[in-house]
């Protein structure tokens, strides 16, 4: 059997495999180095970087739910300066595409992040988080208001040649509209979905499990919602879609590709197994072999919708 071709191209970036890490679930990537070689990844998406360091929310920050978890980390990160000075040089030791997830509390903040980081060679592209539900003043408005979203994307597009991937919030009535707005604004790709807003209460103490009350739901519980949004969006836009939400296995990843995603991200699964990405990647490769698929791109959007025999 000839070697299977697993390369895909997203927003002008050539990835050796469609499997990436999801932002915020793998730290800066370096935390994973004891478990596998980062060079095996399609791309490393680092945790959300803001202009200034952020301390994050008070604990408790996480709680488990059925088939999922809620988090309200509050986008804790070391800030752009430290990221560029300390983290980026170490990431450049690996042969993997580095996508920097960015978040701002205003259009200007996003702009400065893109301006500054576009100058650094180790940054291969941006994933713009417009949807994190944990920060009141922050991304939430961009991610749920179609006009603001388009304006933001247009604003960033003018500032960088580097690939610009917009990560959409699922907490909207019409995800297709949001996707089209991002595309119209000049996005090179879309990642969906970010977490779904949820909450949990400790019935004994009558307190919310999270200090911020509301947090973001992730994990296999949300997979059906993520898959539906990827399918709906992939049919309506021309730019590539990166699917994320509840992927634990190679088969899960394959479902997203079949639905129309060009690549996938693995998030919460890393909390069960630091090498979850690799497990997903290898599972996907076994699937391709089993089905004698030579090129992973043949899977993309290959959903079978033959009219059901019943009208």
């Amino acid at each position, binding site marked *: 059997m000839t070697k299977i071709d697993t390369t895909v191209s997203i927003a002008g970036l050539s990835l050796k495999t469609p499997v990436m890490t999801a932002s915020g679930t793998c730290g800066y990537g370096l935390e994973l180095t004891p478990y596998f070689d980062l060079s095996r990844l399609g791309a490393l998406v680092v945790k959300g970087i803001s202009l200034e360091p952020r301390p994050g929310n008070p604990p408790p920050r996480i709680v488990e739910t059925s*088939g999922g978890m809620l988090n309200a980390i509050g986008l804790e990160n070391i800030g752009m300066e430290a990221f560029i000075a300390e983290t980026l040089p170490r990431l450049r030791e690996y042969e993997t595409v580095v996508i920097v997830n960015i978040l701002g509390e205003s259009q200007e903040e996003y702009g400065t992040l893109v301006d500054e980081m576009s100058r650094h060679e180790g940054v291969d592209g941006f994933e713009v988080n417009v949807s994190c539900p944990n920060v009141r003043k922050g991304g939430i408005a961009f991610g749920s208001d179609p006009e603001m979203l388009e304006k933001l994307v247009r604003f960033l597009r003018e500032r960088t040649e580097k690939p610009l991937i917009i990560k959409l919030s699922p907490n909207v009535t019409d995800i297709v509209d949001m996707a089209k707005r991002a595309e119209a604004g000049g996005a090179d790709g879309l990642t969906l979905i970010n977490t779904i807003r949820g909450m949990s209460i400790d019935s004994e103490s009558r307190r919310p499990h999270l200090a911020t009350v509301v947090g973001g739901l992730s994990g296999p519980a949300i997979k059906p919602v993520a898959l539906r949004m990827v399918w709906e969006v992939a049919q309506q836009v021309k730019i590539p879609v990166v699917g994320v939400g509840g992927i634990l296995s190679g088969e899960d990843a394959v479902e997203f590709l079949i639905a129309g995603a060009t690549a996938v991200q693995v998030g919460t699964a890393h909390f069960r197994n*630091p090498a979850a990405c690799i497990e997903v990647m290898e599972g996907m490769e076994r699937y391709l072999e089993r089905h004698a698929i030579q090129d992973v791109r043949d899977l993309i959007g290959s959903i079978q919708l033959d009219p059901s025999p019943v009208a």
Partner: protein
Amino acid sequence: MPLTPRNAHAALIPVLSNREIVPGIFRMAFEAPRLAAGAKPGQFVMLSIPPTHDPLLPRPFAVFNVDGQRVEILYRRVGKGTGLLSGMRTGDLLRVLGPLGNGFALPDPSVTSIVLAGGIGFASVHFLLLKLLKRQTAPTTLLYGVRSHEEIIPMESLDKKGLLIRVATEDGQQGVKGTVIDLLSTTLPRTENLPTATIESFACGPLAMLRAVAGRMKGLGMRAQFSMESRMACGYGVCQGCVIPFKGDDDPKQIKYRKVCTEGPVFAAEEICWDAIQE
């Protein structure tokens, strides 16, 4: 600097044994040569039971004992995860990640050690006690508080090794009637004429106990290493879920968060911002 768990590994490992040793408390062993070789007192492992997604996240447990290539944990059945764990039998597979965390810093052999354990907190100090008893020339004392005498973990492994063991039970059925704090009050007079530099204390237990112990230690200006707990998702530093508040570097009124999984679980008691921790 966070400790990266360089020796850590994630593997599917078969259960060797799993026994309920006192009501509701289980001792489980698995064969894990790499883990056994690398584990230090105070470190922990993350355990999950494949392939179910419920519970989805792994659960943290202290390394209770290392015996050749066997690693043991001691756990209390409290919820869904430990419920499933308690049903596991020889040969069943577990996913084990570890060893994780920093572990206790072992003192100079000439230092007198006081080890405080509350309830299942004993699980986190047992392996430490074994190491101390091997290394220390100065005496080692265990202050062990439990709610009911039925919970007291049998301690064959610690017997006849020169360990001074003092027990407190809230029901008063064994040892002193009271808590570990009461034991501490009656133990300290014997040690407090020693210079504090020659005493090291170690503690693990419920938050209320640790809070009280921290108060005492502070009053005496005594060093204390505490093994802390918090809700964890990953256990190896990527989720940021497990932070607890510490006094800021410059301004001790400012709070900074540190991760229990990689920067702990063992911390110097006086650095923790106790006021900001919810019960």
